[in-house]
Each structure stands twice: as structure tokens, then as C-alpha cells.
């Protein structure tokens, strides 16, 4: 028996404000007749109660613990408009094909949240409640963010449209690569990789998440050599190029110092890691807006709490928070690459990044209609174990407003980095060209690539090298409302 079950008060009828412990459902946190207001924030949680704990009571407890409640009745509630501030669980549905777990829908009044603060929102919604004993596990699946709340955030500093205008690149995905090896290159050697990749045809190169300022390469060395490489490649191609300079550091002061240096050197883009925290991310987004800088976010660390379906926070919620917080790029999955990503769930993330209105779509894991009210579009980034031979699948799955990052698939090319970059660029342009001509790229993809490779030896070599590489493992985070599938064959 759980604490909250055994804590049932003895008398049948007692006053709401009698001292002692009372079931959450009786304290106003369960209101099955409640109709959410247009300005309410709504969260849907997957709850797995301890054995013997009633689902409704557990759900009401989540509503209580994520809003006004504490474990016992407090008379000081009566000094407030407490009915307004109580979160209200209004619906509890069993999770399909998962006995013992439920989806609990909880509505929160807008006044519970500080405008424009992810830290404040998350402190309520994923605060203490995630350690609440009567639950075995708890997962925040999705949130509805009303326009009134969305409009209190800056949103992406630059956005897809202005990023494309600044880069002068329209009508095709952008191409990138993460410099490899991740660790150990000196500044001079690192810049060499950047130069070769950009000159060969990539639009961007990227620092990896854990490249900050280490003994083998301090950050100023990296920034100086990288900008030499960017400018050389720009002159060699007549195209705008960029490299994501990772400014992630121990303190905000350090991050601002690195960002200012990146700006001074003329970089058009900087990068941060998700692990710096929501407040630091929002600060960097403000800085980026003020300084005409594109802001790339690497989602380092997210899999610790997004991957398992039973407990944590869904990545679709993180995506929504990051679009509000104001980053311009976010890693959102590849489906076909080496990292976790079910195709339908991933489609849901991409829609949340790029659309101005995302309709409810349970098959994609989207529980609510989500209006974005003209918030800038967030560019999704596909990175991790992808190569030129998958170009047709990538474009079919991810569309054209995406950065495709081929790290190993550029640097690991048998004829060198420039050849690897050229192979990817030719494959990309050929596929978009064919799609626009009305060809069925998913069916004819390999043929289209083969034809393009006739004019491009590097592409032929890339296709020969990686033709059989796939990562077909089943995903752990899949929608609950459709049969599970794996990546496109």
C-alpha cells in the first residue's frame, strides 16, 4: 500500500480545510468536468503508479505536486485564489497496450508561470513531482503552450528564413560536418579539416559537443584557425560558409567572452550544448539576436531523460522549449543514422521545429494542436551515422529545411575530405533537382545517385565505400498509437 492510500482520513465527510492529510483528488486537483481555458498551459504525463495506487489519485497528486500542493492541508491556501492556482487533472486514459500506465492530462492556469522563462516553467512541471514516491515512473509526454504564453518568448534568434537569407542558400538542405576526431586535434590541424570540408562543398562545419578548451587546443587557437579556414573557403567558392564555434564553457562570463571573440573574428554562427541549462540557453539566444549571430544547439545529454518511454521528458517537449528559448538549430534525429529515432516520432519533432501550426497527430506523438503564432522557425539538424548513399531517404523523410551533417561521411572518404564534401554536395543537389523534376526519389534514389556519380568520381567512391552501411535497430521511443516500425529499408 502506498503512503497516499494509507493516509486516507478516517471520517467520511470532513471539511476541505480541516488539518491533516487528504486525498489529492478531494483537494480539487481532480476535476473531470473541467474544460481547459484557451490560456491554460496543458501537460500530458505518462504515469506509472506504485502497485495499489489508484490512477486517478496518482494523477491528481501529480497535478497537486506540480502546482500548489504540499503533502498536507494548509490553511494558508485560504489567503489565495487557490481554486485558480491549483492545477487540474481533467482526464486520465489508459496507455494503449501498456497495462499499469496512464496518460494524465493536467491544466495549469497561465498565472502560475513567469512570462518568458523556461526555468520557471520546468521548475513546476518537471520539478519535485518527478521524485514523488507513490509513482514508479513519470514521463512528460507533451505540452500545449497557449499563444498568450508563446508570445512571452523571443523565439529563435535568427530563424530558418533569415538564416537562409544571410547565407544566400535557398531550395536545398544545408550541408555540414562535425570535425573528427572529436578530441585531440591541434588548432592548426583542426582548421585544416574545416578548410578542406568547406572548400569541397559543405556549407558548415561544426565543433563537437565536448570541444571547448582543452590542453591539446585552447579555444582561441581553434577560433583563429577556423576563421582562416572559413574565409579561405569562402573566397575559393564564392559562397558564404560558416563553422559552428562551440562557446560552451563553465560560466556565463566565459561564454560571453568566447562569443564576443567569435563575433570579432566575423563568424556568422556559434554553438552551445544543451547541458549548459535553460537559463544559459535563453541568455545566449538574447545575445545571438543582439549580435546577428546564428545559434546552434547540440542536444548533448538529452538521451539521459528522453529515450526511455517510462520516465523522463519526451524530446518533443524539449523541442518546444528550445523553440521558445530561442536557438536557431537543434539536433532532431536522422531516422536512418546511428542514433535513436523512430520515423513517426522524428517527424513530430521536425514539425514542431518548422511549422507555424502543428495539428494534433497521435501517430506522430503530438497530443495537442500547437499554434506558434509566427515564432521564428527552428532549423532541425540531422547528424550521426548518415552518408551520401542515403540522400533520397533523408530528403524524403526530413524535407529540405534541415542541416544534413555528414561527419564520418565526409572526413572518412577514401580520397580525402574535399572529395567527401563534394560527394555529399553533388548527391544532395542531384536529389533535389530530381525531386523538383517530379521524380519519385524514394523509389529511384539509388539510380539518381548512380547517374550523378558518372560526372563525379568522389560520389562514386562514396557510394562504393558506404553502400551497405545501415543502422536498423528498433527504437525505444515510439508513438503509442500506431504499430512500431523501423527505419525505411
Amino acid at each position, binding site marked *: 500500500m502506498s503512503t497516499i492510500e494509507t493516509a486516507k482520513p478516517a471520517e467520511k465527510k470532513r471539511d476541505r480545510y480541516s488539518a491533516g492529510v487528504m486525498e489529492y483528488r478531494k483537494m480539487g486537483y481532480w476535476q473531470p468536468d473541467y474544460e481547459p481555458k484557451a490560456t491554460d498551459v496543458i501537460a500530458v504525463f505518462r504515469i506509472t503508479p506504485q502497485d495499489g495506487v489508484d490512477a486517478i489519485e496518482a494523477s491528481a497528486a501529480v497535478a497537486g505536486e506540480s502546482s500548489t500542493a504540499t503533502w498536507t492541508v494548509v490553511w494558508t491556501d485560504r489567503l489565495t485564489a487557490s481554486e485558480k492556482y491549483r492545477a487540474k487533472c481533467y482526464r486520465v486514459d489508459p496507455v494503449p497496450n501498456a497495462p499499469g500506465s496512464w496518460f494524465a492530462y493536467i491544466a495549469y492556469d497561465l498565472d502560475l508561470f513567469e512570462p518568458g522563462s523556461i526555468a520557471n516553467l520546468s521548475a513546476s512541471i518537471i520539478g519535485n513531482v518527478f521524485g514523488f514516491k507513490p509513482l514508479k515512473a513519470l514521463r512528460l509526454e507533451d505540452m500545449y503552450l497557449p499563444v498568450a504564453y508563446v508570445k512571452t518568448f523571443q523565439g529563435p534568434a535568427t530563424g530558418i*528564413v533569415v538564416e*537562409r*537569407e544571410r547565407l*544566400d*542558400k*535557398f*531550395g*536545398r538542405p544545408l550541408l555540414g560536418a562535425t570535425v573528427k576526431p572529436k578530441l585531440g586535434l591541434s588548432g592548426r590541424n583542426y582548421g585544416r579539416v574545416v578548410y578542406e570540408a568547406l572548400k569541397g*562543398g559543405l556549407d558548415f562545419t561544426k565543433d563537437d559537443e565536448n570541444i571547448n578548451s582543452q590542453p591539446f587546443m585552447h579555444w582561441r587557437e581553434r577560433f*583563429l584557425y577556423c*576563421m*582562416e579556414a572559413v*574565409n*579561405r573557403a*569562402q*573566397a*575559393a*567558392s*564564392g*559562397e*558564404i560558409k560558416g563553422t559552428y564555434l562551440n562557446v560552451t564553457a563553465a560560466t556565463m562570463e566565459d561564454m560571453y567572452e568566447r562569443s564576443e571573440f567569435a563575433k*570579432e*573574428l*566575423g563568424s556568422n554562427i556559434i554553438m552551445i550544448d544543451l547541458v549548459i541549462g535553460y537559463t544559459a540557453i535563453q541568455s545566449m539566444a538574447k545575445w545571438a539576436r543582439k549580435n546577428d549571430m546564428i545559434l546552434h544547439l547540440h542536444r548533448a545529454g538529452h538521451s539521459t531523460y528522453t529515450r526511455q518511454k517510462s520516465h523522463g521528458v519526451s524530446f518533443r517537449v524539449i523541442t518546444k522549449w528550445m523553440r521558445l528559448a530561442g536557438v536557431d538549430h537543434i539536433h532532431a534525429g536522422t531516422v536512418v543514422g546511428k542514433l535513436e529515432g523512430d520515423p513517426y516520432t522524428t517527424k513530430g519533432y521536425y514539425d514542431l521545429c518548422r511549422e*507555424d501550426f502543428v495539428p494534433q497527430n497521435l501517430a506522430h506523438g503530438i497530443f495537442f494542436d500547437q499554434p506558434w503564432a*509566427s515564432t521564428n*522557425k527552428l532549423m532541425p539538424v540531422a547528424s550521426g551515422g548518415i552518408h551520401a548513399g542515403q540522400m533520397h531517404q533523408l530528403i524524403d523523410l526530413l524535407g529540405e529545411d534541415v542541416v544534413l551533417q555528414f561527419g564520418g561521411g565526409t572526413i572518412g572518404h577514401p580520397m580525402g575530405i574535399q572529395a567527401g564534401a*563534394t560527394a555529399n*554536395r*553533388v548527391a544532395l*543537389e*542531384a536529389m*533535389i*533537382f530530381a525531386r*523538383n*523534376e*517530379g521524380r519519385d526519389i524514394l523509389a529511384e534514389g539509388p539510380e539518381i545517385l548512380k547517374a*550523378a556519380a558518372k*560526372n563525379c568520381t568522389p560520389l562514386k567512391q562514396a557510394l562504393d565505400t558506404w553502400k551497405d552501411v545501415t543502422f536498423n535497430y528498433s527504437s525505444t521511443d515510439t508513438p503509442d498509437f500506431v504499430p512500431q516500425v523501423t527505419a525505411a529499408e
Partner: protein
Amino acid sequence: MRITQGAFSFLPDLTDEQIAKQIQYAIDKGWAVNVEFTDDPHPRNTYWEMWGMPMFDVKDAAGVMFELNECRKTYAGRYYIRVSAFDPSHTWESLRLSFITDRPAEEPGFALDRQEVAGRNQRYTTRSYAASTKPEGARY
């Protein structure tokens, strides 16, 4: 060197039939296509000269091809010519496709000028060999 601005510069030069298909794709999306030209292809030269207005009401690629060919009569061989497609829909209101259709026979490209400043810092300038010394119209 070959300037690789635009969506299809890594492919072999496009035939008119291929250009027309891309234009028809843009028209079918509801985008307005226009023709632009320049002899200053600096990567940050945003405003190429417009060959007339964007063709908001042209529904057939043949109409755009006619204008492209008219533009070529004056500028082919000495200028870069590109075709761009504008999407007026809410939250886009920008270009959705842009590609080079014509380029000068010789492309000398760009020099990278450096100015050594404080510390190890440098100020970089991308300078067009063709555009930096000669006036418009006499560059290629």
C-alpha cells in the same frame, strides 16, 4: 574557379529543358519567379539587377524562359544570370529556390586580402578579381 552559389552549381551546366522543369516546379508551388543578373558575384552582394519584375502571374515556364532568353541576349557570356522563386506565404515571405543559369566563360574568382591587426587576429576581405578593378559592364 566555378562560383558555387545557388542550388545546382555542383551539377553540370543546366540545359534549357532542365531549367524550364525547375521553373515549372516553382510556379506549381505558387511562387513568383524572376530573372536577375550581375557582374559582381561577391557572396554578399544580395541585390543582383532585376530583369523586370518577379513574374507573379506567369503560369507556364515558357513565359519565364522567354524572359530569360531576352536577358541572355544582352548579358550572356559577360554576366551571371540566376533564376529565383519567391514564396509570399505567411511565415516564409522569402526566396524558396535560387539557381544560376548562366555564367561568364572565364571565372577568375576571388582573392582573400588580409590585414594583420592586434594579436594574431586578421581582418579578411573577399575581393573579386573581375569586379575590383573594372567598372560594371566591363568586368568579364
